[in-house]
Each structure stands twice: as structure tokens, then as C-alpha cells.
């Protein structure tokens, strides 16, 4: 992935370089676990931790790694981190661990993590890699939150958040009466549909932005042309 040429704001950056809806990386877990907000936050935090630490470690060991075996080396680093995070979650948040199930283990093969290691961490210094890991992890988490908010709200009508350590409900708010729930949003079909709509929105945002940029560039060019024509006219007048 190329570096963005112009500086964008935080949110615009999140939308533009969004790993999920923009680049279609790490879709499996996004579709599978976003049935509730709790799952999304748990998964997001796990990915942020793994991604940040793996970026740091890989940026440190990249100069020492022979080129031919760099992928296996990176994968072992990532797998080790995921094992550690998985064990911690099993110990402290057993309920969350059992709902997320294999998807915690499958963080190993989440394309975002290996992708960032390959595209960024191996050629940048520690601080930059850590920042990149954090940013990517955050935008992944935002994508999960967006998906799960829509799916939980439309599917069950309730927004609910509970403490993963002891399963006490922190807050629970029913926004849609029971009769108007759309249970299909909690199923696979709902996941695909929500994803389709959100990724189309991101694409529409990008298209709109590009159009604006093009219009701005065109206006600039027109202004330059006009100025040149005026100058030429003035010259002609002067000569006359």
C-alpha cells in the first residue's frame, strides 16, 4: 500500500485506509463475531494488542531476518502473541473467550496483521511501527463496532454492554420494540448485507472525495488558463 500523499484528518484517514471496508482484509472475523457489541470490543482489543506488539517486535527483528524465511518467522511471532492473548482471555474473560471461540486462534491468519508486518513494520522504525499498529487496530475495531451496532440494534432491538470479567450488565437500552426486531440481522445473511452496505458507503465516500479533488484541480487549472489568457491579452493591448 502506498503512503497517502496528502495529510488527512483522523476520521478521514480511518475511512480511507480502513483495512476492512477499504482494503477487504480481515473480513472473516468481522463478519463472524459482530453479533454483539461485547464481542466486537473483545475482538478489537485482542487485535489491537497483537497487532501493536507484533509490529514492534517485527520492526526490531526485521534487519536480522534472512529474506527467504521472513514469512515463517513473522508467523511464529504472531502465533506466539496470539497464544498469549488467548490464554489471558481464557483466564480473565472465560465467557468472552468461549463465544469468540476459534476466532481468537484465527487472529494468527488475520490478513491485517501479516499484511502490516510485510507492508510497513519490516521497513520502518519501532515508534512508527507501533503507531501504525495502533492506528490499524483502532480502525479495525471501529469497523467491528459499526457492524455490531447495526446488527445488534436491528437484530435484537437492544444496545447492551456488559463487563467481560464477571458478565454484569453495564448498560442495556431497548431502542426498538420487540415487535419490530429484524432477527435476520443476527444471522449470516444479515452479516453479509450489513457489510455490503457499509463497504458501499465507504466506496461512495471515496468516489465523492475524488470527484471533489478533481473538480478542485480543474478549477485551479481553469483559473491558471484564464490568468494566462488575460496576461496575453494585456500584452497584446500593451503592444498595440
Amino acid at each position, binding site marked *: 500500500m502506498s503512503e497517502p500523499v496528502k495529510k488527512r484528518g483522523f476520521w478521514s484517514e480511518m475511512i480511507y485506509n480502513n483495512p476492512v471496508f477499504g482494503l*477487504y*482484509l480481515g*473480513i*472473516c*472475523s468481522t*463478519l*463472524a463475531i459482530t453479533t454483539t457489541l461485547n464481542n466486537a470490543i473483545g475482538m478489537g482489543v485482542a487485535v489491537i494488542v497483537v497487532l501493536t506488539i507484533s509490529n514492534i517486535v517485527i520492526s526490531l527483528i526485521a534487519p536480522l531476518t534472512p529474506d527467504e524465511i521472513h*514469512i*515463517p518467522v513473522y*508467523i*511464529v511471532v504472531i*502465533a*506466539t502473541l*496470539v*497464544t498469549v492473548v*488467548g*490464554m489471558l482471555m481464557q483466564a480473565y474473560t472465560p465467557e468472552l473467550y468461549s463465544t469468540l471461540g*476459534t476466532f481468537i*486462534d*484465527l487472529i*494468527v*491468519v*488475520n*490478513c491485517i496483521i*501479516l499484511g502490516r508486518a510485510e507492508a510497513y513494520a519490516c521497513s520502518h522504525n519501532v515508534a512508527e511501527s507501533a503507531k501504525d499498529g495502533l492506528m490499524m487496530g483502532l480502525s479495525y475495531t471501529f469497523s467491528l463496532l459499526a457492524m455490531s451496532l447495526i446488527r445488534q440494534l436491528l437484530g435484537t432491538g437492544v444496545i447492551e454492554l456488559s463487563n467481560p470479567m464477571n458478565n454484569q450488565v453495564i448498560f442495556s437500552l431497548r431502542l426498538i420494540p420487540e415487535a419490530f426486531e429484524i432477527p435476520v440481522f443476527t*444471522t*449470516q*445473511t*444479515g*452479516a*453479509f*448485507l450489513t*457489510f*455490503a*452496505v457499509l*463497504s*458501499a*458507503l465507504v*466506496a*461512495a465516500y471515496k*468516489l465523492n472525495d475524488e470527484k471533489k479533488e478533481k473538480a478542485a484541480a480543474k478549477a485551479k487549472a481553469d483559473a491558471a488558463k484564464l490568468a494566462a489568457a488575460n496576461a496575453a491579452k494585456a500584452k497584446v493591448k500593451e503592444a498595440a
Partner: protein
Amino acid sequence: MNLLTLFLSALLINNVILSKFIGMCPFMGVSTKLSSAVGMGVAVIFVIFGASVLSWALYYYCLVPLGLEYMKLICFILLIAAFVQFVEMFIKKNSPSLYKSLGIYLPLITTNCAVLYVALDNISQGYNFIETLVNSIAVPAGFMLVLVIFATIRERLAGSDTPEAWKGNPIAFVVAAIMAIAFSAFAGLV
């Protein structure tokens, strides 16, 4: 468990893509052309079958006797990476045209979650060797089935008039949603 039931449920009911959302990256990536979808499907069947049978053997004959069950994630992923590397070298030597058409997706099979998922699933479900064989064929066969159907739909879709923002992947997800509805009808089969 009845082996036929196991096969059908892994192939259709618990289809790896449409009901478990596993292996989405190659599903979206190589499904634009039927020929590459078929090639990818065959490669995935071969890799998943080989890798998960080897992982099963590694787990029960090596990790369990040594009491290293918690190392399974690291061992499996290394085994898969090595196995994929081997398959890649084999295809490169024996079928350069297939190698060309699959391009970057072959090394990506390593990070295809389906491979690791099947290896882990065989262990967590406690399947014996025969069940492992059946499961490791049925899951990737289901993957290929959906991939090929999806690729044919997408080939038609490429020529249709889609709104600008929905072009490419977004509309493909809508197709996937409709396919998921269709496949949910298999739930009553077993």
C-alpha cells in the same frame, strides 16, 4: 457420528464460507474469474486435506505425548506454511500456467483461515482419524462449491449495470447474502 451426516453437514449446512465466514479473503479475491476459482478450489482442497491430516498426526503423536497441547497453534501454522511452500514449488515446476493464473494467491493460502480452521476444528471436535479424513475433504469441497457458484454469478455481474459505489466487492457481498439465504435451506437436511 454417521460419516455421511458429517460429510453433508460440513459441505452444505455448516458451509465454511456462508455459515462460518472462514476463507473470505480468497473468496472475494479469486472469484472474479471462473477458471481461477476452479484452480484455487483445487489447490485449497489439496492443501487443507494434506495440512489437516498432518496436523492431526502431529497433535496426537507428538504434542499430546509431550504434554505440549498449548503449542498447537504455533506448530500447526508452521506446518501449514511449510506445506504450502512445498505445494507452491510443486505447482511452479509442474504446471507453470496454473502457477501464473493463481499468482499471489498461492502463498496466501498460508493465511487462508480455512486451513488453520480445519486443523483446529478436527482437534477441538475430538474427531478420530477417519472422521478427520472426511471432515478435511468436506470442508474444502464446500469451499470450492460456493467459490465456483459465486464466480459464475460474478462473471455475469461484471457486465451488468451496477451503481458506481456498489461496483466490485460491495455488490458481491449482496450476492453472498442471497446465497447464504439459499444455503440456510439446507439446515433441515440432516
